[in-house]
């Protein structure tokens, strides 16, 4: 399957982040159309028709979210872009932020028109200081040319955007934790409902959308919802940015239609590195259940991956080859989740520490087969009892590797670990 050039069509142009390049390449045409020819209801209808689903991981229908927000008449209302991509393995939004920031700004302005948004915030991950400057420059350019600010293009719409830098907390990628952080608090998730569309930033209606989602909006308006819905699969349409890392020849960000198979995706990234054999993949970042060789022909879209018990998430695909140590991999991911648990919900806060300790014990040759049952039991309790999706998903790496690669755990438990390490077969 060949790569698409939709979201990435301006990437690679000289000075692609500058407004002049953007304007010369369909930039702000969609916003102009929205402001001059469409009603807010028509904009929402078009997005609804496109069946665009949230690219941050949850896959919620963007049109529906906007519709809910538009029905709430409380003002002011906020458009918040979630640019905190902190899911290990994810670096796709960075391409847009760095090379096509105006697409995001345009998408946010269109969202503002659709739902009566008064102000926008881009919550940017702390590790992207360069992108913060690029975005601030882009906002300034857009204000100077009248695409942001007061009375945009004479339409009466007042809307501008503030860049807000995070400071290294994974959980802030979860929308309610992100809002807490935007309010200047520790990033801990809130219980939902109420949903942010009704009670978000400062308890006011707030639309939180991912970078890629918002940047997809201009193309939905330009080419129409029907066109967009026709790309990829019916249930999860559209072009999608995949970040591929790990054991492939050319790790990077690739734009492909939703539903491309994992096998094709690996091929697009140059195939397996050094000709090694594929062993496993985490298709949706650290929080997704792993896939094995038998699942290589699964379509990479929300529904197909859910059907095999894993998830697309943000499209962060980590590939592991035949030499990878799955127990070690699961430990590394567990260590991450234990570190990043915000501490609000006991099962996630305490449970992950237990999981990490048990995993470390297995790696150090102190594990027993009963530990595997205990691990699955703790994981089940964490999964059913956390406020946010991040807590729920934090143990997928453990449960899926135990189910699919139990033999590797047993190797460690049966003290074959030393042999594995001695033969240099360590990841």
């Amino acid at each position: 399957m060949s790569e698409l050039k939709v979201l990435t069509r301006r990437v690679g142009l000289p000075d692609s982040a500058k407004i002049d390049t953007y304007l010369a390449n369909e930039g702000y045409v969609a916003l102009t159309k929205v402001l001059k020819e469409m009603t807010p209801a028509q904009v929402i209808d078009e997005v609804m028709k496109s069946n665009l689903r949230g690219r941050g991981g949850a896959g919620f229908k963007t049109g529906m979210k906007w519709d809910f927000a538009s029905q709430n008449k409380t003002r002011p209302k906020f458009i918040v872009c979630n640019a905190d991509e902190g899911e290990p393995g994810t670096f796709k939004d960075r391409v847009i932020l760095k090379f096509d920031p105006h697409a995001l700004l345009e998408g946010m302005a269109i969202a503002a028109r659709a739902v009566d948004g008064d102000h926008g915030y881009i919550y940017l991950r702390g590790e992207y200081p360069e992108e913060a400057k690029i975005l601030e420059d882009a906002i300034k350019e857009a204000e100077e040319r009248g695409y942001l600010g007061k009375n945009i293009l004479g339409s009466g719409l007042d809307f501008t955007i503030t860049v807000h830098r995070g400071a290294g907390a994974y959980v802030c990628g979860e929308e309610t934790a992100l809002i807490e952080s935007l309010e200047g608090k520790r990033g801990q998730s809130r219980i939902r409902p109420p949903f942010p569309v009704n009670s978000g930033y400062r308890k006011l209606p707030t639309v939180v959308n991912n970078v890629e989602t918002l940047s997809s909006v201009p193309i939905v308006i330009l080419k129409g919802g029907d066109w967009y819905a026709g790309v990829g699969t019916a249930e999860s349409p559209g072009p999608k940015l995949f970040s591929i890392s790990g054991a492939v020849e050319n790790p990077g960000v690739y734009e492909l239609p939703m539903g491309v198979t994992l096998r094709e995706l690996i091929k697009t990234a140059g195939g397996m590195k050094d000709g090694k054999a594929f062993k496993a993949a985490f298709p949706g970042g650290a929080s997704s259940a792993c896939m094995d060789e038998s699942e290589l022909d699964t379509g990479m879209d929300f529904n197909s991956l859910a059907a095999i018990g894993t998830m697309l998430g943000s499209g962060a695909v980590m590939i592991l080859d035949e030499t990878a140590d799955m127990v070690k991999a699961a430990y590394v991911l567990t260590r991450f989740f234990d570190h990043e648990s915000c501490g609000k919900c006991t099962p996630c806060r305490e449970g992950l520490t237990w999981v990490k300790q048990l995993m470390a014990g297995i790696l150090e040759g102190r594990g027993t087969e009963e530990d595997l049952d205990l691990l699955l039991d703790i994981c089940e309790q964490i999964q059913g009892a956390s406020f946010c999706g991040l807590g729920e998903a934090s143990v997928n790496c453990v449960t899926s590797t135990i189910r699919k690669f139990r033999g590797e755990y047993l190797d460690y438990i049966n003290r074959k670990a030393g042999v594995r390490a001695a033969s240099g077969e360590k990841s």
Partner: protein
Amino acid sequence: MSTQELFSDAELKAIQGIASRYEEAGSAVMPLLHYVQEIRGYLGEDEMAFIADYLRIPRVRAYEVATYYTLYATKPRGKHVIQVCRNLSCTMAGAEGIIDFLKKELEIEVGGTTSDGIFSLVEVECIGSCDKAPAIMIDEDHHGPVTPESLREILNTYRGKP
């Protein structure tokens, strides 16, 4: 403590500018902490208290934010902070070897600062450079994929930097 002792007029002006971006004072906490860390290298107790007082929020609000988020430092660090990613893609690409090399090369442990005060070494989770694994950040710059050889050169370029 009077404000003049903590911040210069120019710095106070910058603080005012950042705070004025937000309608709700509390929202300015993180950007202000970022700013103070940028100019001072870390967040001292007096500085955190000043920010809280300035925004008229309880001081604990500034402390809790500063200690919750990993990018804030509440203790002095070296002139340049090396962050080594230890998440999955980087670990598979040899991040552990990179940590070991840096520990030996700089003669410090993770979390430590070199005796000349130039480098601090920390381990972090995913910095969004998974396609360049093993990846590190030094101050605000991303580097990767790094090897012990390339790191030696990279470190040298920072040794001369202010």
